[in-house]
Protein backbone atom coordinates (compact mmCIF):
# COMPACT_ATOMS: atom_id res chain seq x y z
CA UNK A 1 0.00 0.00 0.00
CA UNK A 2 0.98 3.61 -0.31
CA UNK A 3 2.24 4.52 3.14
CA UNK A 4 4.60 6.90 4.84
CA UNK A 5 8.02 5.59 5.77
CA UNK A 6 8.28 5.61 9.57
CA UNK A 7 11.87 6.87 9.40
CA UNK A 8 11.22 9.60 6.83
CA UNK A 9 11.22 13.18 8.08
CA UNK A 10 7.69 14.13 7.08
CA UNK A 11 5.84 17.40 6.65
CA UNK A 12 2.05 17.52 6.25
CA UNK A 13 0.80 20.73 4.66
CA UNK A 14 -2.75 21.79 5.46
CA UNK A 15 -4.36 24.34 3.21
CA UNK A 16 -7.99 23.22 2.97
CA UNK A 17 -10.42 25.28 0.88
CA UNK A 18 -12.54 27.66 2.93
CA UNK A 19 -15.80 25.91 1.99
CA UNK A 20 -14.73 22.39 2.82
CA UNK A 21 -17.77 20.45 4.14
CA UNK A 22 -17.90 19.16 7.70
CA UNK A 23 -17.91 15.39 6.84
CA UNK A 24 -14.91 15.87 4.55
CA UNK A 25 -13.02 17.77 7.24
CA UNK A 26 -13.65 14.99 9.74
CA UNK A 27 -12.43 12.36 7.30
CA UNK A 28 -9.28 14.32 6.46
CA UNK A 29 -8.52 14.49 10.17
CA UNK A 30 -9.06 10.71 10.48
CA UNK A 31 -6.83 10.08 7.48
CA UNK A 32 -4.12 12.34 8.85
CA UNK A 33 -4.11 10.58 12.21
CA UNK A 34 -4.13 7.14 10.58
CA UNK A 35 -1.30 7.76 8.14
CA UNK A 36 1.10 9.57 10.47
CA UNK A 37 0.73 6.89 13.13
CA UNK A 38 4.20 5.40 13.53
CA UNK A 39 5.99 8.21 11.70
CA UNK A 40 8.81 9.24 14.03
CA UNK A 41 9.25 12.81 12.81
CA UNK A 42 6.17 14.67 11.56
CA UNK A 43 5.83 18.43 11.20
CA UNK A 44 2.42 19.97 10.53
CA UNK A 45 2.54 23.04 8.34
CA UNK A 46 -0.33 25.47 7.82
CA UNK A 47 -0.57 28.88 6.25
CA UNK A 48 -2.21 31.69 8.23
CA UNK A 49 -5.42 31.20 6.20
CA UNK A 50 -5.58 27.52 7.23
CA UNK A 51 -5.11 28.09 10.96
CA UNK A 52 -8.81 28.31 11.78
CA UNK A 53 -9.28 24.86 10.20
CA UNK A 54 -6.36 23.29 12.10
CA UNK A 55 -7.49 24.88 15.38
CA UNK A 56 -10.96 23.38 14.93
CA UNK A 57 -10.04 19.90 13.72
CA UNK A 58 -6.53 19.40 15.16
CA UNK A 59 -6.66 21.42 18.39
CA UNK A 60 -3.85 19.41 19.99
CA UNK A 61 -1.37 20.33 17.25
CA UNK A 62 0.53 23.58 16.85
CA UNK A 63 1.25 24.03 13.15
CA UNK A 64 4.43 25.60 11.80
CA UNK A 65 4.61 28.43 9.30
CA UNK A 66 5.36 27.30 5.71
CA UNK A 67 8.72 29.06 5.93
CA UNK A 68 9.98 26.04 7.86
CA UNK A 69 9.99 24.15 4.55
CA UNK A 70 12.91 26.35 3.50
CA UNK A 71 15.01 25.99 6.63
CA UNK A 72 14.39 22.37 7.55
CA UNK A 73 14.99 19.26 5.41
CA UNK A 74 12.24 16.73 4.78
CA UNK A 75 12.17 13.33 3.10
CA UNK A 76 8.39 13.24 2.52
CA UNK A 77 5.81 15.95 2.06
CA UNK A 78 2.06 15.31 2.23
CA UNK A 79 -0.32 17.80 0.66
CA UNK A 80 -3.86 17.75 1.97
CA UNK A 81 -5.81 17.77 -1.26
CA UNK A 82 -9.52 17.22 -0.66
CA UNK A 83 -10.87 18.02 -4.11
CA UNK A 84 -9.55 17.05 -7.51
CA UNK A 85 -10.16 20.53 -8.86
CA UNK A 86 -8.44 22.36 -6.01
CA UNK A 87 -4.78 23.31 -6.09
CA UNK A 88 -1.98 22.16 -3.82
CA UNK A 89 -0.47 24.71 -1.56
CA UNK A 90 2.82 25.58 -3.25
CA UNK A 91 5.29 27.37 -0.98
CA UNK A 92 6.77 30.51 -2.56
CA UNK A 93 10.28 29.01 -2.84
CA UNK A 94 11.99 25.84 -4.06
CA UNK A 95 11.84 22.70 -1.96
CA UNK A 96 15.07 20.78 -2.02
CA UNK A 97 14.85 17.39 -3.75
CA UNK A 98 14.85 14.44 -3.40
CA UNK A 99 11.50 14.45 -1.65
CA UNK A 100 8.64 11.97 -2.02
CA UNK A 101 5.35 13.76 -2.47
CA UNK A 102 1.96 12.46 -1.37
CA UNK A 103 -1.61 13.74 -1.36
CA UNK A 104 -4.19 13.09 1.33
CA UNK A 105 -7.63 13.12 -0.30
CA UNK A 106 -11.16 13.82 0.94
CA UNK A 107 -11.64 10.19 1.96
CA UNK A 108 -8.47 10.05 4.05
CA UNK A 109 -6.66 8.11 1.34
CA UNK A 110 -2.93 8.60 0.75
CA UNK A 111 -1.87 8.83 -2.91
CA UNK A 112 1.36 9.62 -4.76
CA UNK A 113 1.41 13.30 -5.78
CA UNK A 114 3.17 14.54 -8.89
CA UNK A 115 4.72 11.12 -9.50
CA UNK A 116 3.72 7.61 -10.60
CA UNK A 117 3.23 4.67 -8.25
CA UNK A 118 6.53 2.89 -7.68
CA UNK A 119 7.96 -0.11 -5.84
CA UNK A 120 8.04 1.77 -2.53
CA UNK A 121 4.27 2.30 -2.73
CA UNK A 122 3.64 -1.34 -3.46
CA UNK A 123 3.15 -3.85 -0.70
CA UNK A 124 3.12 -7.61 -1.18
CA UNK A 125 3.85 -7.13 -4.85
CA UNK A 126 6.55 -9.83 -4.73
CA UNK A 127 4.42 -12.17 -2.64
CA UNK A 128 3.49 -14.37 -5.59
CA UNK A 129 3.93 -14.64 -9.32
CA UNK A 130 0.69 -12.91 -10.33
CA UNK A 131 1.51 -9.90 -8.17
CA UNK A 132 5.05 -9.78 -9.53
CA UNK A 133 3.86 -9.95 -13.14
CA UNK A 134 1.39 -7.09 -12.67
CA UNK A 135 2.23 -3.41 -12.97
CA UNK A 136 3.13 -1.31 -9.88
CA UNK A 137 0.08 0.76 -10.72
CA UNK A 138 -2.45 2.48 -8.51
CA UNK A 139 -5.93 1.07 -8.52
CA UNK A 140 -6.70 -1.51 -11.13
CA UNK A 141 -7.73 -5.08 -11.83
CA UNK A 142 -4.99 -7.55 -12.66
CA UNK A 143 -4.79 -11.11 -13.87
CA UNK A 144 -5.31 -14.07 -11.55
CA UNK A 145 -6.29 -17.60 -12.61
CA UNK A 146 -9.54 -17.48 -10.64
CA UNK A 147 -11.27 -14.30 -11.65
CA UNK A 148 -9.07 -11.27 -11.04
CA UNK A 149 -7.28 -9.43 -8.26
CA UNK A 150 -7.58 -5.75 -7.47
CA UNK A 151 -5.16 -3.14 -6.16
CA UNK A 152 -6.45 -0.31 -4.06
CA UNK A 153 -3.55 1.17 -2.12
CA UNK A 154 -3.49 4.02 0.37
CA UNK A 155 -6.51 3.37 2.58
CA UNK A 156 -4.97 0.78 4.91
CA UNK A 157 -3.19 -2.58 4.74
CA UNK A 158 -4.28 -5.32 2.36
CA UNK A 159 -3.08 -8.90 2.10
CA UNK A 160 -1.26 -10.35 -0.91
CA UNK A 161 -4.58 -10.96 -2.68
CA UNK A 162 -5.82 -7.42 -2.13
CA UNK A 163 -8.27 -8.13 0.70
CA UNK A 164 -8.37 -6.01 3.85
CA UNK A 165 -7.39 -8.91 6.09
CA UNK A 166 -4.10 -10.16 7.59
CA UNK A 167 -2.01 -12.45 5.41
CA UNK A 168 -1.79 -15.23 7.98
CA UNK A 169 -5.16 -16.54 9.09
CA UNK A 170 -3.93 -19.97 10.17
CA UNK A 171 -4.63 -19.28 13.87
CA UNK A 172 -8.32 -19.07 13.05
CA UNK A 173 -8.48 -22.60 11.71
CA UNK A 174 -8.24 -24.33 15.08
CA UNK A 175 -10.04 -21.70 17.14
CA UNK A 176 -11.98 -22.79 20.20
CA UNK A 177 -15.76 -23.04 20.13
CA UNK A 178 -16.20 -19.70 21.93
CA UNK A 179 -14.29 -17.88 19.24
CA UNK A 180 -16.73 -17.09 16.40
CA UNK A 181 -15.48 -16.25 12.94
CA UNK A 182 -17.57 -13.97 10.71
CA UNK A 183 -16.60 -13.52 7.07
CA UNK A 184 -18.17 -10.81 4.94
CA UNK A 185 -18.39 -10.63 1.16
CA UNK A 186 -19.37 -7.93 -1.25
CA UNK A 187 -18.05 -5.58 -3.91
CA UNK A 188 -16.27 -2.27 -3.48
CA UNK A 189 -18.92 -1.14 -1.03
CA UNK A 190 -18.21 -4.30 0.95
CA UNK A 191 -14.49 -3.54 0.68
CA UNK A 192 -15.47 -0.20 2.24
CA UNK A 193 -13.39 1.74 -0.23
CA UNK A 194 -14.02 5.14 1.36
CA UNK A 195 -13.23 4.16 4.93
CA UNK A 196 -10.06 3.65 6.94
CA UNK A 197 -9.53 0.22 8.55
CA UNK A 198 -11.11 1.12 11.90
CA UNK A 199 -14.15 2.59 10.10
CA UNK A 200 -14.99 -0.43 7.92
CA UNK A 201 -18.42 -1.91 8.62
CA UNK A 202 -16.67 -5.19 9.44
CA UNK A 203 -14.58 -3.43 12.12
CA UNK A 204 -17.77 -1.86 13.47
CA UNK A 205 -19.37 -5.32 13.61
CA UNK A 206 -16.40 -6.83 15.40
CA UNK A 207 -16.30 -4.09 18.05
CA UNK A 208 -20.05 -4.17 18.50
CA UNK A 209 -20.31 -7.96 18.84
CA UNK A 210 -17.42 -8.18 21.31
CA UNK A 211 -18.88 -5.31 23.34
CA UNK A 212 -22.28 -6.98 23.46
CA UNK A 213 -20.67 -10.29 24.49
CA UNK A 214 -18.67 -8.56 27.21
CA UNK A 215 -21.71 -6.67 28.54
CA UNK A 216 -23.74 -9.88 28.59
CA UNK A 217 -21.03 -11.66 30.57
CA UNK A 218 -20.63 -14.13 27.71
CA UNK A 219 -17.37 -15.90 26.95
CA UNK A 220 -18.00 -15.54 23.21
CA UNK A 221 -15.58 -13.45 21.19
CA UNK A 222 -15.77 -12.52 17.54
CA UNK A 223 -13.37 -12.00 14.67
CA UNK A 224 -14.90 -10.35 11.61
CA UNK A 225 -12.99 -10.45 8.30
CA UNK A 226 -13.64 -8.36 5.22
CA UNK A 227 -13.32 -10.38 2.02
CA UNK A 228 -15.16 -7.85 -0.12
CA UNK A 229 -13.43 -6.65 -3.26
CA UNK A 230 -14.06 -4.10 -5.98
CA UNK A 231 -16.58 -5.21 -8.62
CA UNK A 232 -17.22 -8.60 -7.04
CA UNK A 233 -20.51 -10.26 -7.95
CA UNK A 234 -21.86 -13.15 -5.84
CA UNK A 235 -20.06 -15.64 -8.10
CA UNK A 236 -16.76 -14.00 -7.08
CA UNK A 237 -17.79 -14.43 -3.44
CA UNK A 238 -18.38 -18.14 -4.11
CA UNK A 239 -14.88 -18.41 -5.58
CA UNK A 240 -13.37 -16.44 -2.68
CA UNK A 241 -15.12 -18.70 -0.18
CA UNK A 242 -13.75 -21.81 -1.89
CA UNK A 243 -10.21 -20.46 -2.36
CA UNK A 244 -9.55 -18.67 0.91
CA UNK A 245 -12.22 -19.38 3.51
CA UNK A 246 -13.69 -22.86 3.21
CA UNK A 247 -10.99 -24.47 5.40
CA UNK A 248 -11.58 -21.89 8.15
CA UNK A 249 -15.19 -23.07 8.54
CA UNK A 250 -16.59 -19.63 9.34
CA UNK A 251 -19.44 -19.61 11.84
CA UNK A 252 -21.21 -16.79 10.01
CA UNK A 253 -20.99 -15.59 6.44
CA UNK A 254 -22.49 -12.27 5.39
CA UNK A 255 -23.31 -11.56 1.74
CA UNK A 256 -23.47 -7.77 1.58
CA UNK A 257 -24.13 -7.42 -2.13
CA UNK A 258 -26.71 -6.80 -4.85
CA UNK A 259 -25.57 -3.71 -6.70
CA UNK A 260 -22.87 -5.32 -8.87
CA UNK A 261 -24.95 -8.36 -9.77
CA UNK A 262 -27.78 -6.14 -10.98
CA UNK A 263 -25.78 -3.42 -12.73
CA UNK A 264 -23.15 -5.64 -14.34
CA UNK A 265 -25.90 -8.16 -15.07
CA UNK A 266 -27.84 -5.61 -17.10
CA UNK A 267 -24.73 -4.66 -19.07
CA UNK A 268 -23.55 -8.14 -19.98
CA UNK A 269 -24.18 -10.58 -22.82
CA UNK A 270 -27.65 -11.95 -21.97
CA UNK A 271 -26.83 -15.34 -23.48
CA UNK A 272 -24.71 -16.07 -20.42
CA UNK A 273 -27.83 -15.95 -18.30
CA UNK A 274 -29.58 -18.40 -20.60
CA UNK A 275 -26.69 -20.82 -20.92
CA UNK A 276 -24.77 -20.45 -17.67
CA UNK A 277 -26.71 -18.20 -15.34
CA UNK A 278 -23.80 -16.08 -14.23
CA UNK A 279 -22.97 -12.40 -14.07
CA UNK A 280 -19.55 -10.96 -14.80
CA UNK A 281 -17.75 -7.64 -14.98
CA UNK A 282 -18.31 -6.52 -18.58
CA UNK A 283 -14.87 -4.85 -18.78
CA UNK A 284 -13.36 -8.37 -18.69
CA UNK A 285 -14.54 -8.76 -22.29
CA UNK A 286 -11.71 -6.32 -23.05
CA UNK A 287 -9.22 -8.75 -21.46
CA UNK A 288 -10.36 -11.40 -23.90
CA UNK A 289 -9.75 -9.01 -26.77
CA UNK A 290 -6.21 -8.35 -25.52
CA UNK A 291 -5.39 -12.02 -24.90
CA UNK A 292 -6.66 -13.17 -28.26
CA UNK A 293 -5.88 -10.14 -30.39
CA UNK A 294 -9.55 -9.70 -31.23
CA UNK A 295 -9.81 -5.99 -30.53
CA UNK A 296 -11.55 -5.40 -33.83
CA UNK A 297 -14.55 -7.46 -32.76
CA UNK A 298 -17.25 -5.69 -30.81
CA UNK A 299 -17.84 -6.17 -27.12
CA UNK A 300 -21.39 -6.42 -25.80
CA UNK A 301 -21.18 -2.73 -24.95
CA UNK A 302 -20.14 -0.69 -27.95
CA UNK A 303 -19.72 2.64 -26.20
CA UNK A 304 -20.65 4.74 -23.22
CA UNK A 305 -22.84 5.25 -21.32
CA UNK A 306 -23.55 1.54 -21.12
CA UNK A 307 -26.91 0.29 -22.33
CA UNK A 308 -29.05 -2.46 -20.87
CA UNK A 309 -28.79 -5.74 -22.73
CA UNK A 310 -30.48 -8.21 -20.42
CA UNK A 311 -34.00 -8.31 -19.02
CA UNK A 312 -34.91 -7.84 -15.39
CA UNK A 313 -36.07 -11.40 -14.57
CA UNK A 314 -32.84 -12.93 -15.85
CA UNK A 315 -30.70 -10.44 -13.92
CA UNK A 316 -32.58 -10.90 -10.66
CA UNK A 317 -32.80 -14.66 -11.13
CA UNK A 318 -29.04 -14.95 -11.44
CA UNK A 319 -28.46 -12.93 -8.28
CA UNK A 320 -30.80 -14.99 -6.11
CA UNK A 321 -29.72 -18.33 -7.59
CA UNK A 322 -26.02 -17.71 -6.98
CA UNK A 323 -26.69 -16.41 -3.52
CA UNK A 324 -28.70 -19.52 -2.71
CA UNK A 325 -25.73 -21.54 -3.96
CA UNK A 326 -23.35 -19.71 -1.61
CA UNK A 327 -25.78 -20.18 1.26
CA UNK A 328 -25.91 -23.94 0.59
CA UNK A 329 -22.13 -24.19 0.62
CA UNK A 330 -21.82 -22.22 3.87
CA UNK A 331 -24.49 -24.27 5.60
CA UNK A 332 -23.00 -27.56 4.41
CA UNK A 333 -19.72 -26.38 5.93
CA UNK A 334 -21.33 -25.76 9.32
CA UNK A 335 -21.97 -22.02 9.13
CA UNK A 336 -24.90 -19.61 9.12
CA UNK A 337 -25.49 -17.44 6.10
CA UNK A 338 -26.85 -13.90 6.40
CA UNK A 339 -28.57 -12.65 3.25
CA UNK A 340 -27.64 -9.01 3.01
CA UNK A 341 -28.98 -6.59 0.44
CA UNK A 342 -26.63 -3.67 0.33
CA UNK A 343 -27.97 -0.12 0.65
CA UNK A 344 -27.88 2.45 -2.10
CA UNK A 345 -28.84 6.09 -2.18
CA UNK A 346 -31.69 5.70 -4.67
CA UNK A 347 -33.93 4.61 -1.80
CA UNK A 348 -32.78 7.13 0.83
CA UNK A 349 -35.66 9.26 2.11
CA UNK A 350 -33.80 12.48 1.42
CA UNK A 351 -30.24 13.15 0.32
CA UNK A 352 -27.66 15.17 2.28
CA UNK A 353 -26.49 18.25 0.31
CA UNK A 354 -23.06 16.66 -0.12
CA UNK A 355 -24.69 13.46 -1.41
CA UNK A 356 -26.55 15.55 -3.98
CA UNK A 357 -23.42 17.31 -5.23
CA UNK A 358 -21.42 14.06 -5.24
CA UNK A 359 -24.26 12.40 -7.15
CA UNK A 360 -24.23 15.12 -9.80
CA UNK A 361 -20.50 14.62 -10.33
CA UNK A 362 -21.02 10.85 -10.48
CA UNK A 363 -23.79 11.19 -13.08
CA UNK A 364 -21.58 13.33 -15.31
CA UNK A 365 -18.68 10.90 -15.35
CA UNK A 366 -20.01 7.41 -14.82
CA UNK A 367 -20.53 4.94 -17.66
CA UNK A 368 -23.22 3.05 -15.70
CA UNK A 369 -25.44 6.06 -15.14
CA UNK A 370 -28.31 4.92 -17.41
CA UNK A 371 -28.19 1.38 -16.06
CA UNK A 372 -28.42 2.65 -12.50
CA UNK A 373 -31.53 4.65 -13.37
CA UNK A 374 -33.07 1.57 -14.96
CA UNK A 375 -32.09 -0.65 -12.03
CA UNK A 376 -34.23 1.15 -9.45
CA UNK A 377 -37.25 -1.16 -10.00
CA UNK A 378 -34.89 -4.14 -9.72
CA UNK A 379 -33.63 -3.03 -6.30
CA UNK A 380 -37.25 -2.71 -5.23
CA UNK A 381 -38.07 -6.17 -6.47
CA UNK A 382 -34.95 -7.66 -4.85
CA UNK A 383 -35.93 -6.08 -1.54
CA UNK A 384 -39.50 -7.38 -1.82
CA UNK A 385 -38.31 -10.86 -2.73
CA UNK A 386 -35.86 -10.93 0.18
CA UNK A 387 -38.67 -9.83 2.48
CA UNK A 388 -40.72 -12.85 1.48
CA UNK A 389 -37.88 -15.32 2.04
CA UNK A 390 -37.59 -17.30 5.25
CA UNK A 391 -33.85 -16.81 5.73
CA UNK A 392 -31.45 -14.90 7.99
CA UNK A 393 -31.43 -11.48 6.42
CA UNK A 394 -30.56 -7.81 6.64
CA UNK A 395 -32.14 -5.59 4.02
CA UNK A 396 -29.82 -2.58 3.89
CA UNK A 397 -31.76 -1.14 0.96
CA UNK A 398 -34.86 -0.90 3.15
CA UNK A 399 -33.02 0.02 6.36
CA UNK A 400 -31.29 3.04 4.80
CA UNK A 401 -34.58 4.37 3.40
CA UNK A 402 -35.39 5.94 6.76
CA UNK A 403 -32.42 8.34 6.76
CA UNK A 404 -32.80 11.93 5.62
CA UNK A 405 -30.90 15.03 4.58
CA UNK A 406 -29.10 15.40 7.89
CA UNK A 407 -27.27 12.09 7.42
CA UNK A 408 -24.25 11.93 5.10
CA UNK A 409 -24.15 8.19 4.41
CA UNK A 410 -23.18 7.86 0.74
CA UNK A 411 -20.07 9.18 -1.00
CA UNK A 412 -21.72 8.23 -4.32
CA UNK A 413 -24.91 6.29 -5.13
CA UNK A 414 -23.56 3.01 -3.74
CA UNK A 415 -20.36 3.55 -1.73
CA UNK A 416 -20.84 4.38 1.91
CA UNK A 417 -19.24 7.11 3.96
CA UNK A 418 -17.78 6.17 7.37
CA UNK A 419 -21.11 7.09 8.99
CA UNK A 420 -22.87 4.77 6.53
CA UNK A 421 -20.50 1.93 7.39
CA UNK A 422 -21.16 2.54 11.09
CA UNK A 423 -24.90 1.99 10.57
CA UNK A 424 -24.38 -1.01 8.30
CA UNK A 425 -22.00 -2.69 10.75
CA UNK A 426 -24.47 -2.30 13.62
CA UNK A 427 -27.32 -3.71 11.51
CA UNK A 428 -25.38 -6.86 10.67
CA UNK A 429 -24.20 -7.10 14.29
CA UNK A 430 -27.88 -7.09 15.37
CA UNK A 431 -28.57 -10.19 13.27
CA UNK A 432 -25.51 -12.12 14.46
CA UNK A 433 -25.91 -11.08 18.09
CA UNK A 434 -29.50 -12.31 18.09
CA UNK A 435 -28.44 -15.63 16.63
CA UNK A 436 -25.68 -15.89 19.24
CA UNK A 437 -28.06 -15.22 22.12
CA UNK A 438 -26.59 -11.81 22.93
CA UNK A 439 -29.75 -9.71 22.67
Amino acid at each position, binding site marked *: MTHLNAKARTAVIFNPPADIPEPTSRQIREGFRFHIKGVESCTVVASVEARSWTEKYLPDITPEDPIILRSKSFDSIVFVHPFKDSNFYIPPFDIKPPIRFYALDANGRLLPAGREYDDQDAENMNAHIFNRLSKPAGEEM*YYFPYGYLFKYPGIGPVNQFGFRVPDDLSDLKNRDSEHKLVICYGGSSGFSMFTLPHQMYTSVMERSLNKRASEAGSSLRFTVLNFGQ*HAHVVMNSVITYVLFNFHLKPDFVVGNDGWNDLIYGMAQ*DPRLFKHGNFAYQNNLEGWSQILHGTGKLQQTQT*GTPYRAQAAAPAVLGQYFTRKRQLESMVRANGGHFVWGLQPNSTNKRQLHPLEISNGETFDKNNVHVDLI*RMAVPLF*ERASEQLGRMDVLKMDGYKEFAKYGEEDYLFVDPVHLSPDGDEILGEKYADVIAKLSGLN
Partner: protein
Amino acid sequence: MNKQDKIDRSTGSSSSAFANYMRLRIQEFYWTVCTLLGLKHLHDGSKAAFAPTAKRVVAGGAELSQIKAEEEERINRLISEATSLQLSRASEYLRDHKQDLILVAVRERTTPEPSKLPSPFVYAMQ
Protein backbone atom coordinates in the same frame (compact mmCIF):
# COMPACT_ATOMS: atom_id res chain seq x y z
CA MET B 1 -55.61 -6.79 -12.90
CA ASN B 2 -53.47 -6.77 -15.99
CA LYS B 3 -49.75 -7.47 -15.95
CA GLN B 4 -48.79 -3.84 -16.37
CA ASP B 5 -50.72 -2.79 -13.27
CA LYS B 6 -49.20 -5.57 -11.25
CA ILE B 7 -45.63 -4.70 -12.10
CA ASP B 8 -46.16 -1.00 -11.63
CA ARG B 9 -47.57 -1.42 -8.14
CA SER B 10 -44.97 -3.91 -7.02
CA THR B 11 -42.12 -1.62 -7.99
CA GLY B 12 -43.75 1.56 -6.80
CA SER B 13 -41.59 3.19 -9.45
CA SER B 14 -42.12 6.08 -11.80
CA SER B 15 -43.71 5.59 -15.19
CA SER B 16 -40.34 6.18 -16.92
CA ALA B 17 -38.77 3.39 -14.88
CA PHE B 18 -41.67 1.19 -15.90
CA ALA B 19 -41.14 2.14 -19.54
CA ASN B 20 -37.47 1.21 -19.20
CA TYR B 21 -38.45 -2.11 -17.69
CA MET B 22 -40.84 -2.85 -20.54
CA ARG B 23 -38.21 -1.82 -23.07
CA LEU B 24 -35.88 -4.42 -21.60
CA ARG B 25 -38.55 -7.09 -21.87
CA ILE B 26 -39.20 -6.21 -25.49
CA GLN B 27 -35.48 -6.18 -26.26
CA GLU B 28 -35.05 -9.62 -24.81
CA PHE B 29 -38.04 -10.95 -26.67
CA TYR B 30 -36.80 -9.46 -29.93
CA TRP B 31 -33.40 -11.04 -29.37
CA THR B 32 -35.00 -14.40 -28.58
CA VAL B 33 -37.17 -14.36 -31.66
CA CYS B 34 -34.23 -13.42 -33.89
CA THR B 35 -32.22 -16.28 -32.43
CA LEU B 36 -35.09 -18.76 -32.81
CA LEU B 37 -35.58 -17.84 -36.42
CA GLY B 38 -31.89 -17.79 -37.16
CA LEU B 39 -32.09 -14.15 -38.16
CA LYS B 40 -28.84 -13.20 -36.54
CA HIS B 41 -28.18 -10.60 -39.16
CA LEU B 42 -30.97 -8.65 -37.48
CA HIS B 43 -29.56 -9.05 -34.01
CA ASP B 44 -26.65 -11.26 -33.05
CA GLY B 45 -26.88 -10.71 -29.31
CA SER B 46 -23.38 -9.34 -29.03
CA LYS B 47 -24.06 -5.87 -30.35
CA ALA B 48 -26.14 -2.92 -29.32
CA ALA B 49 -29.72 -3.96 -29.02
CA PHE B 50 -31.34 -3.05 -32.31
CA ALA B 51 -30.64 -2.83 -36.00
CA PRO B 52 -26.90 -3.34 -35.67
CA THR B 53 -26.42 -3.81 -39.39
CA ALA B 54 -27.30 -0.22 -40.14
CA LYS B 55 -24.96 2.68 -39.46
CA ARG B 56 -26.19 5.18 -36.91
CA VAL B 57 -27.09 8.57 -38.27
CA VAL B 58 -28.35 11.75 -36.73
CA ALA B 59 -31.51 11.94 -38.77
CA GLY B 60 -34.37 14.30 -39.29
CA GLY B 61 -37.32 14.89 -41.66
CA ALA B 62 -37.30 12.70 -44.76
CA GLU B 63 -34.31 10.67 -43.60
CA LEU B 64 -36.16 9.77 -40.41
CA SER B 65 -39.20 8.63 -42.40
CA GLN B 66 -36.96 6.47 -44.57
CA ILE B 67 -35.39 4.80 -41.51
CA LYS B 68 -38.82 4.25 -40.03
CA ALA B 69 -39.99 2.61 -43.27
CA GLU B 70 -36.93 0.34 -43.32
CA GLU B 71 -37.54 -0.75 -39.75
CA GLU B 72 -41.21 -1.39 -40.45
CA GLU B 73 -40.23 -3.55 -43.38
CA ARG B 74 -37.71 -5.38 -41.20
CA ILE B 75 -40.35 -6.19 -38.59
CA ASN B 76 -42.84 -7.22 -41.28
CA ARG B 77 -40.25 -9.64 -42.66
CA LEU B 78 -39.70 -11.03 -39.19
CA ILE B 79 -43.46 -11.51 -38.72
CA SER B 80 -43.80 -13.31 -42.03
CA GLU B 81 -40.82 -15.58 -41.19
CA ALA B 82 -42.43 -16.39 -37.85
CA THR B 83 -45.79 -17.06 -39.53
CA SER B 84 -44.28 -19.32 -42.18
CA LEU B 85 -42.53 -21.32 -39.47
CA GLN B 86 -45.87 -21.58 -37.63
CA LEU B 87 -44.52 -19.83 -34.53
CA SER B 88 -47.95 -18.45 -33.79
CA ARG B 89 -47.20 -16.91 -30.38
CA ALA B 90 -44.07 -15.22 -31.69
CA SER B 91 -45.82 -13.77 -34.71
CA GLU B 92 -48.75 -12.65 -32.57
CA TYR B 93 -46.42 -10.95 -30.08
CA LEU B 94 -44.51 -9.22 -32.84
CA ARG B 95 -47.71 -7.96 -34.40
CA ASP B 96 -48.93 -6.66 -31.02
CA HIS B 97 -45.64 -4.87 -30.28
CA LYS B 98 -44.82 -3.81 -33.80
CA GLN B 99 -44.98 -0.07 -33.13
CA ASP B 100 -42.83 -0.37 -29.99
CA LEU B 101 -40.20 -2.35 -31.86
CA ILE B 102 -40.11 0.15 -34.70
CA LEU B 103 -39.87 3.05 -32.27
CA VAL B 104 -36.94 1.59 -30.34
CA ALA B 105 -35.10 0.51 -33.50
CA VAL B 106 -35.44 3.95 -35.06
CA ARG B 107 -34.20 5.58 -31.87
CA GLU B 108 -31.23 3.24 -31.83
CA ARG B 109 -30.27 4.07 -35.38
CA THR B 110 -30.66 7.80 -34.94
CA THR B 111 -28.69 8.16 -31.72
CA PRO B 112 -25.14 9.43 -32.25
CA GLU B 113 -22.34 6.85 -32.01
CA PRO B 114 -21.40 6.27 -28.38
CA SER B 115 -18.00 7.23 -27.07
CA LYS B 116 -15.16 4.76 -26.49
CA LEU B 117 -15.15 2.20 -23.72
CA PRO B 118 -13.00 2.80 -20.64
CA SER B 119 -9.85 0.75 -20.02
CA PRO B 120 -10.69 -2.89 -19.25
CA PHE B 121 -8.53 -2.72 -16.12
CA VAL B 122 -10.32 0.21 -14.55
CA TYR B 123 -13.02 -0.08 -11.93
CA ALA B 124 -15.65 2.11 -13.54
CA MET B 125 -18.38 1.98 -10.90
CA GLN B 126 -17.17 4.89 -8.77
